């Protein structure tokens, strides 16, 4: 029995009819056509599918689409505005934190969440918070540098959007 669903993704409402067992990841990629979010394992083990739900990072392969109803979902497509990259995206590009790019959308969403929650994360904190996001290309060095470059020790709040 399919279920009617109203999803709020990147500020847009989507009215969908989906099987109750399908994941948020599946609906984002297949029903809405937001393929920026990647599936690396489908089991919550690699973090490639990380999106933000009410500001919290979640593995969208582990969240049912019906569980996402009523939450504000932000995906990688929701970060850049008017052709302008979000500072996290910008930092990943300029620091060489992107190689094959498959972990990148999830990694950037997790990085944004880290900075949203603490404007001045230490390197150790960044590494600890990124532990659920696997990258096989970079050795994480440049990813950590990219996130660290956005830390704002003096100003308090990290400026997002």
């Amino acid at each position: 029995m399919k279920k009617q669903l109203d999803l709020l993704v990147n500020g847009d409402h989507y009215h969908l009819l989906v099987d109750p067992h399908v994941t948020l990841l599946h609906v984002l990629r297949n029903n809405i056509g937001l393929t920026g979010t990647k599936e690396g394992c489908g089991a919550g083990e690699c973090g490639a599918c990380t999106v933000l739900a009410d500001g919290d990072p979640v593995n969208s392969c582990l969240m049912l689409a019906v569980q996402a109803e009523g939450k504000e979902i932000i995906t990688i497509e929701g970060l850049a505005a008017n052709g302008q990259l979000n500072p996290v995206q910008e930092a990943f590009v300029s620091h060489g934190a992107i190689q094959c790019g498959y972990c990148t959308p999830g990694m950037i969403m997790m990085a944004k969440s880290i900075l949203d929650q603490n404007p001045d994360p230490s390197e150790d904190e960044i590494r600890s918070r990124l532990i659920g996001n696997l990258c096989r290309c970079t050795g994480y060095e440049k990813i950590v540098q990219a996130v660290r470059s956005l830390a704002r020790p003096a100003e308090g709040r990290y400026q997002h959007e």
Partner: protein
Amino acid sequence: MSDFKVVGKPQPFVDARQKATGDAVYTTDIHLPGMLYGKILRSPIPHGRILNIDTSRALRLPGVKKVITARDTPMLCYGITHEDWHLLAPDKVRFVGEEIAAVAAVDLDTAEEALDLIKMEFEELPAVYDPEEAMQPGAPLINDAPGNIAHVFEVERGNVEEAFGDSYLVLEEKYYTSQVYQSYLEPMAAVAKPESDGRISFYLPIQIPSKCRVTYAKALDMPIDSLRIIQPHIGGGFGAKMETPLHPIAALLAKLTGKPVSLANTREEDFMGGNPRLPMNIQLKMGFTREGLITAKKVRIVAANGGRVCYGVPILGTACFRVDSMYRFQNIKAEGYLVYTNTLPTGCFRGFGNSQMVFALESMMDQAAHQLGIDPAEMRHANAVHSGYVSVHGWQVKSAALDECVGKATDAAGWKKKRAEKIFGKGIGLACTNHVSGYSAFFPPFHGSSAMLRLELNGKVSVTSGEVELGQGQKTAFSQIAAEVLGLTVEDVRMTPVDSDLSTFSLGAWASRTTTVGGKAVYLAAADLRSKIMAYASMLLEVEEDQLFMAGGKVIQDGCPDKGIALADLASRYLYQHNGSFIYGFGEFNPGTQVPDAEKYGNPSCAYPFAAHIAEVEVDTETGQVQVVSYHAAHDLGRTINPLGASGQIEGGVAMGVGWALMEDLFYDHGRVANAGFLDYRVPGPKDLPEIKSIFVESNDPYGPFGAKGLGEPALNPVAAAISNAIYDAVGIRLRELPFTPEKVLTELKKSKK
């Protein structure tokens, strides 16, 4: 040569922006009208005869469009070096995961449900997993090869026995290198689209889009040119994304349904259907003089190939003799056996077979240094090859800065001081590597590359090459090379997508060849374009060519900055004058290499990179846990094209090496991979790695573009030995079996205390 404007400058990757926004399209992001979804049914048993496959219930499931078994395939044997592949197993399965049947359905759920409805009956056969056992008389035969031996590699130079007799020190040890999985984040996938003229268009994440057509054409019994490969973005490969039956199975489903088919592995299927690293039992014997010079090396390798042969033949050969051009070996003997086993078929993994042998060799070099009372770094200095060296196998090392790599790495790491500290539990270790930049025996018909550049109407340049970006930075390096030659910026260069209908036939991303061989073709094509532009500009401006130069998107007369023509103007004037033809530049690089002859003699690569790595570890003697706390990697990469990309590649290679050394190992339960997921098969996360410091040593190779050599694989090769040697320095134990798990560390520590 600091007058480069683009080469050598840190360049953010040209495709990074689209990857950062989610715009970059990977294979499974492609949705075509009418597309079906495929799934593969894999063998649940390691060895057995197929008695019956009943697909009738699956076919009756609404939404199922096709179920195929071997009888629906051309029933041809195909393969890479051995024709022991089938699209779908006809009568026998040889490993858990072998492809038996496939389904195409309207959606993935239906395709998965259909797999459950297919009934298989087998007569199970005794299985053999260990290669030494598989070679014994009476072992179950997997592919009817006597002794299950798929291939033997033998080479001998000089006289090892005599040299051992004359040696001051002779060491003999056994090493084991484990089976590890490449763990690219994007699982294997294909989208295959049948065209109305009978051709198949393929969207494939593959490292060899041109070459794979040779194999797939045979499998599908179609002409090579009827297969069109279009390259989406690739989510990493590390050697694994070569030929795989998944691709032609997708094509066959597409052909038989008349619809596009998307077929992708789940992560678990990818563990079971991929081609992990060839595990090796290495018996190594080496002789040394009292001063630490190598006198002889004898090696015997037995490698567990798995149920069918992928690239085991050149991987084994590489392990047997590639290191022979790192040190000045004169007396060597190698014998290698590639043995069929009822385990996963093994294939390319960054480093090919060299990683395995470098682990054994560099562990033994360290052991010898300690037994002789010589600084391990001095041992390397004493034995290292230098520019101009020709190995006993005829390998011509035109540029070599191994010696300098050792010097710079030891200086940067504070080697002498730290070695003198002798704090129990803390250690420092050194290991070196050599490698190739392209390898002739991999595809004997040709070894080079070609490229085509076109001056666009806006005065910018597009570069067409069939070489492949899989995250290593190929598009960026090629853009930099073209921009440097043409006096342009990287923003002025556009890489065209790889499409076999339009691109040059290129051999692809393996053997650390892309920048060196493919990049040199781009360099030559850019030079050709440049000379054509100059000739045309000379005609238009009525100025001798030698009075002209190119800069800032213009051709300008020397000394008269006002007299010149913008490339955009020149491009359109040429095009209008030539009835729509653009100005093209063509480049063809013949690396001048040889396929080694029957005696294994001949120079297989145009350039040889080198590296020296230093690992610092802390060993917890209570838990056996090893933590790498600092890492220095000095690389002779000839010339750094993009320092940002090069350091990224080194960091990634070291990370992968740390995983191989300390964490990763595929383990089997009755032939089935028991840890087919990232929860049980741990790859390094951000907390498992230290800061990795890259050091570039530029030997300026005479062949590579601007002197550049390969880097991708050498970044991984020495890591396991560097860590092993550091563990010895820390706690006095020699670990010769990968990975160095806490259990092994504790066991050896206990033994050492006795």
